[in-house]
């Protein structure tokens, strides 16, 4: 099954960064500021820290079998049939979240740029490049991520520079007003969107990486860099917009871009910034979608995953239209059902996996050796 595809650890790093930033850049500031007000950026730091632990846990699991994908690991440890059931539950996560992100991208565009364009049209276009990317394969995705990453970070850097003069340090004072418990609770949103959901990356890591040891470091560093970006964005949102406004905006970082006004000349560039978010959204989406398509192909033991890409694109497309009837429902789901779902798939099942691995360790090793 296309085993010879390998990406290097730099490309992997870039993919992880994009995954971590993904939607978080748009939504996290608001979610964090909602409960922890001006301390949102501290919450982001805490969230990133916890997220790193989660990632470390994932890499620990993945490195038991450095040539297998997560689905194969599941099947190996749980046995064929229970493993398949677990895999199917696992796959439903990226499937659902691809549609969810698709809704989000459409929703973002509808809200801020093109309110009268039907979401179907926007989503069709997005699914078009999703399918195209997955069809062209992981290597192509990784390479284009590298190129777009340069754009992304250059623009992000400029963005930070331009918005920096607008910072009002009073807005983040008093520091540490909120107690730690609240912060931990709020940081869950960041931990889940950026790190727990990164379990889908185990479909790539370590099976498709040429240097696994380095890649593990990339995974952690990527998550950290992504986290730092989010911390910066959260800090900027709170310090420029103020905690109340940050919490109240649906997409605070877009509002942030609207505030850029340097020398009465570089202003009104928020739409350009929106393109950057589309890019980061796209890569998160494509990682989910790749995990879905590839995962299904692997559970069913198919020789090639490509034929599934277009039908699944169609399914994801339709799902994106029905999954959230409205924005309010979506925001509610984000912090209830999706929490539970992510935690079950991303924490509970892997923990179970670790437990059973601990029990069956010896027999599994033997099995592996004999197969060699």
């Amino acid at each position, binding site marked *: 099954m296309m085993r010879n595809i390998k990406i290097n650890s730099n490309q992997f790093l870039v993919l992880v960064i994009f995954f971590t930033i993904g939607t978080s850049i748009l939504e996290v500031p608001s979610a964090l500021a909602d409960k922890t007000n001006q301390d949102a950026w501290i919450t982001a730091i805490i969230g990133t820290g916890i997220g790193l632990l989660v990632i470390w846990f994932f890499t620990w699991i993945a490195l038991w079998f450095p040539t297998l994908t997560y689905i194969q690991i599941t099947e190996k440890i749980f046995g064929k049939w229970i493993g398949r059931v677990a895999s199917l539950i696992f796959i439903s996560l990226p499937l659902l979240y691809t549609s969810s992100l698709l809704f989000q991208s459409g929703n973002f565009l509808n809200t801020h740029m093109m309110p009268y364009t039907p979401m179907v049209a926007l989503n069709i276009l997005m699914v078009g490049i999703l399918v195209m990317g997955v069809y062209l394969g992981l290597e192509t995705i990784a390479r284009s991520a590298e190129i777009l990453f340069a754009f992304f970070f250059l623009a992000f850097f400029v963005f930070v520079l331009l918005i920096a003069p607008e910072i009002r340090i009073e807005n983040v*004072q008093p520091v540490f007003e909120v107690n730690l418990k609240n912060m931990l609770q709020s940081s869950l949103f960041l931990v889940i969107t950026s790190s727990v959901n990164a379990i889908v990356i185990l479909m790539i890591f370590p099976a498709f990486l040429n240097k696994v040891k380095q890649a593990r470091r990339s995974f952690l560093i990527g998550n950290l860099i992504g986290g730092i970006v989010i911390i910066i964005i959260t800090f900027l949102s709170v310090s420029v917009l103020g905690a109340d406004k940050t919490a109240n905006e649906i997409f605070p970082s877009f509002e942030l871009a609207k505030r850029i006004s340097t020398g009465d000349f570089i202003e009104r560039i928020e739409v350009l910034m929106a393109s950057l978010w589309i890019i980061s959204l796209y890569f998160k989406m494509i990682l989910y979608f790749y995990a879905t398509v590839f995962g299904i192909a692997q559970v069913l033991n198919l020789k090639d995953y490509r034929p599934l890409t277009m039908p699944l694109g169609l399914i994801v497309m339709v799902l994106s239209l029905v999954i959230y009837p409205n924005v309010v429902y979506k925001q509610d789901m984000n912090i209830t059902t999706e929490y539970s779902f992510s935690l079950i798939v991303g924490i509970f099942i892997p923990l179970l996996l670790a437990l059973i691995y601990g029990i069956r360790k010896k027999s599994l090793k033997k099995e592996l050796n004999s197969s060699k």
Partner: protein
Amino acid sequence: MKRHMIVLLILSLFLTGCWDKRELNELAITVAMGIDKVEDEFQLTAQVVVPSEVSMKQSSGRSPVTLFQAKGETVYEALRKMTISSPRKIYPGHLRMLVIGEELAQEGIGESLELLSRDWELRSDFYVVVAKDKTAAEILNVSTPIESIPANKMFNTLKTSENSWSATKGITLDDLISDLISDGQNPVLSGIYITGNEESGSSKQNVESITPSAQILYDYLAVFNKDKLVGWLTERESIGYNYITNSIKTTVTSVSCPEKGKASIEVIQFKSDMKGKINKGEPEVDVNIQVEGNVGSVECHINLKEPVTIEELEKIYEKEVKESIDQTIETAQKQYKTDIFGFGQAIHRSNPKTWKKIKEQWDEKFTDMVVNVEVDLKLRRTGTVNKSFLKSLQE
């Protein structure tokens, strides 16, 4: 590869719906909007640019802007109703000024601003001002010299006067809303009014004479309690307000000379620090103002060659500014009873725990809190001359 290209192409052909497409000449570029309350309904006035009159080449001498008006129960309804009279859809993306009628301001501006903060097309970087003694519609009806678009005139006037005179303050919608929603801070807005014969203000002749018969001017700051207008600050108080809130860029202040006469100090560097603290259970705020300035003009007989004179001038300035600031604070505390300076926030920043307790009764606490004002001026230069020629005139 080719397949995807083709699929994409076909898709984009399918989708040539152009739902959000608007050609430039389908837009009524609205540069200023006025909101008034007329008989329980919102009356919306939009000042719309006539592009061909603004550009040099094609202008035929007609007015560069035109007004459209509509009434509705909500602002949004009124905005859409405007298409009854306007041939093009009102496009507010380049709004420069929002003028709120005094009557509406007294009743509360919250409801009318809600739409503006929610609408996707509005960028909230326009100035909000209150029409003093007039309706917003009347203000928008005056044509202006130099800047052919009145909204631009208002915008630029406010900007320049904010930068170099500092009795006004340009408040954008963002600032206004964040003042409105945050605890321990109430908003102020600049006032705007018309002098002269406003009847003839809207006609073209208004700008054809050297002295326009009607002119738009800024008056000082309108004080709000929550979203309701409660009164106005005087010029001196307005400057005092800006001193406290660190919103002075440059300004000129006249001070009395030791003997008779006046001198003026030009402020070139300005920094004001506000620190809250709790003293014996009661909130207190220290305002520490550091100014660097030049001697702008000396209309009295002092010897600027003496270092003592400079020191003396500094002292006088510090005293007088402190007085005017104290007076501003007193007006806010005693007359209007509203914390426009954000003292509450200062307390919140420094003592979050105490703030939680006194938050609910902040309005009462504010009226009798102690504010310690420190002013520190450093005079640096004296302009291009040393001694005033007035001195030799006297001798």
